[in-house]
């Protein structure tokens, strides 16, 4: 399953709930969700730990918009909107954790 998160984990608990549901597949961070993929945040360790269950992706244009292009944590693959589309078609379903 493709899990889409659009809020920062320090603002909302969507990412945490997603990780707890442990569906496997992929997590794609978009909009304010990309903050979860930045180095040095209080959530970094939790996201690193989730790498065992999920492949991690973050939307490049959203990272760049927020000025974090040089601070993406290891283990997160940056994709563009075309990559977002590919992730959707490659997974049987997607859940937007709103």
């Amino acid at each position, binding site marked *: *399953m493709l899990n889409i998160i659009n809020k920062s984990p320090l603002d909302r*608990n*969507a990412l945490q*709930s997603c990780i*707890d*549901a*442990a*569906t*496997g*597949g992929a997590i794609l961070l978009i909009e304010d969700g990309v903050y979860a993929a930045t180095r040095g945040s209080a959530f970094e360790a939790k996201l690193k730990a989730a790498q065992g269950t999920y492949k991690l992706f973050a939307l490049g244009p959203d990272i760049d918009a927020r000025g974090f292009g040089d601070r993406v944590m290891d283990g997160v693959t940056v994709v563009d909107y075309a990559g977002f589309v590919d992730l959707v078609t490659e997974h049987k*379903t*997607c*859940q*937007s*954790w*709103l």
Partner: protein
Amino acid sequence: MTTKKFMFVNRKAPYGTVYALESLEVVLIGAAFEQDVSLAFMDDGVYQLKKGHQTKGIEMKGFEKTYGALDDYDVNKLYVDEESLKARGLTADDLCVPVEVMSRAAIGKLMEEQDVLLSF
């Protein structure tokens, strides 16, 4: 008509925002289209099912009864996250309809089985 598994994921409390009410309206249409409909309640979404909504004071239309009416539409797969209930001091007895309480990992497994996941 094709039957697909539609799961409606509810993570927001009622009345503070419109999502709980308007998502119920989609559930009813999904049932009318004879789809295989289930509802998952997680995080503050579990608050939607709390018994005893009394909305006179806030002058908003209460919709607790609509959860009760779901059964008439053959929508009776309501899954509630145990951890979310506990964190909010609730048990299944506090809820206005019969539900299946399960772990969030179990809800996650159910999500994997769906064809369409709708969140609001």
